[in-house]
């Protein structure tokens, strides 16, 4: 990151932290929380896209995190903070087992395998042990995070503002992790696997191991985001984690562009806001989504952020001359 980027990132972060003190609208806060959550989920999806695969089980892993955290806080009365960590880890363990099968395939086959896994997980949530998982009705009354008492100050999280802060901090943590991935050798290795698996293997990369690692990271982040989703909504059902949600997340990444870290976040922010405007259109909303996807793929396949950054580089280069 150069100085301009660091400055821009700091300013944006400061504004985001300050925003809830200026804006009191509950509606606005809720939209912002969902932008953060979907940014987290899209960043997770992008991690797998780096190795060249799109996981359609991503929404299901989000659901695994959500259900586990809901059950841990409601049935075992664990604190939200503990449940959050445990649910993310547990999602990672699920990803280890399912991923060790899934990453043996690639391309269209990986798509089908993860699609089948995702829908199977959702059908299990729908049909297995309704007393525990609530069947198609899902789980009601998921508690908000408990207050943190540090003596002189008590932080409460049962408001929109509290959830906003938690989601923002979580997003920053995920961004930091993904940024380190991108900047390190792991990111470069994942990148070349995504470009040519055969050549990657021939220069000595254990493609299977790295794809599995990517799948686990990607899915754990989905679980982490799912926990936030559950405790923000206070109500979850299998319908919240369907194939369409996976497609929606993929759209965020494609719209913003997968190459840069900012891409999925810009994609999530733009399309979540757009969805609010399109709310009146009801089911026709999907038509707009489809149109946008076609336009982006046709004219700026590198996504909005990819396109803008390319433009900027061109200017920079011509100035150098």
């Amino acid at each position: 990151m150069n100085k301009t980027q660091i400055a821009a990132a700091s300013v944006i972060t400061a504004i985001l932290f300050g925003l809830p003190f200026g804006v009191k609208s509950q509606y606005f806060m809720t939209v912002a929380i969902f932008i953060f959550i979907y940014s987290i989920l899209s960043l997770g999806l992008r991690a797998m896209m780096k190795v060249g695969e799109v996981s359609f089980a991503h929404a299901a892993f989000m659901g695994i995190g959500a259900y586990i955290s809901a059950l841990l806080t409601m049935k075992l009365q664990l604190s939200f903070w503990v449940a959050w960590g445990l649910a993310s880890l547990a999602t990672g363990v699920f990803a280890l087992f399912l991923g060790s099968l899934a990453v043996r395939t690639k391309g269209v086959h990986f798509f089908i395998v993860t699609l089948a896994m995702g829908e199977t997980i959702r059908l299990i949530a729908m049909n297995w042990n309704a007393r525990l998982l609530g069947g198609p009705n899902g789980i009601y009354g998921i508690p908000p995070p408990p207050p943190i008492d540090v003596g002189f100050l008590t932080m409460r999280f049962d408001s929109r503002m509290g959830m906003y802060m938690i989601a923002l901090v979580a997003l920053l943590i995920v961004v930091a992790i993904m940024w380190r991935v991108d900047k390190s050798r792991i990111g470069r290795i994942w990148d070349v696997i995504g470009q040519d698996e055969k050549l990657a293997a021939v220069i000595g990369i254990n493609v299977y191991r790295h794809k599995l690692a990517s799948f686990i990271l990607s899915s754990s982040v989905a679980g982490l985001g799912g926990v936030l989703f559950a405790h923000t909504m206070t109500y979850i059902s299998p319908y919240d984690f369907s194939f369409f949600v996976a497609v929606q997340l993929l759209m965020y990444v494609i719209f913003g562009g997968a190459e840069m870290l900012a891409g999925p976040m810009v994609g999530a922010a733009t399309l979540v806001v757009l969805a609010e405007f399109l709310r009146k259109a009801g089911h026709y909303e999907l038509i707009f989504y489809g149109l946008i996807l076609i336009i982006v793929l046709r004219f700026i396949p590198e996504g909005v952020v990819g396109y803008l950054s390319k433009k900027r580089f061109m200017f920079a280069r011509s100035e150098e001359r």
Partner: protein
Amino acid sequence: MAVSDVDLDVNEGEILGLIGPNGSGKTTLLNLINGLLRPSRGKVIFRGEDVSGFPAYLITRKGIGRTFQQNVLFRKRTVWENVLIAHEVNDKHDEWLSFLGLSRSRSQEKEASESTLRLLDEMGLISWKDRLCSDLPHGIQRMVGLAIARAVKPDVMLLDEPFGGMNLSEIANMVRVIEQMKSRGVTLLLVEHRMKVVMAVCDRIVVLNFGRKIAEGLPGEVRNNEEVIKAYLGDRNFDF
């Protein structure tokens, strides 16, 4: 069966040429050696160790590198990035150190980037280093393919038609690089169509036809072998 009953010994430090008409199984043999294909029968022995059926990345780590007949490169990345990643993968330090950005891994990253520049310079690629691989002319792409394979620092290098589609000055440069590798103790197995170059460069030659070995020996012996001449007759690449 694409290849059967081929018994092939490569001696340390030599350049062994592997020739044969189209479809005679040369590339298949390379794929069997470096683990892109698993042999249904037979063995690959490297330094006394049976490595048959090992996955490709392990074969590479044992010290066998290779190039491809087509230009297989990380096309959307620059020449420098292509060669750097091959260097980095084969650093012995763990990539998780790199994830944490620790200073030890930083110095090793610097080392990798320095040896990348050195290698590009040696192979006459330094002026291309910031170009995207997809934008390079064919001959330069072939050279970059070899640079990637060399960055892995193999003891044995399998070259699949390194001169394919090259012009004369590019061929001369490639010959120079191959001889440079030999002088540094790298053993080479060279699959090639162009007989003149093979005859000039190789210490020994093995001839395949229909997946079987039909001749083996010094370039002069192979050139005059009856069966070899018969196998090559009618082949458009026949230009001794």
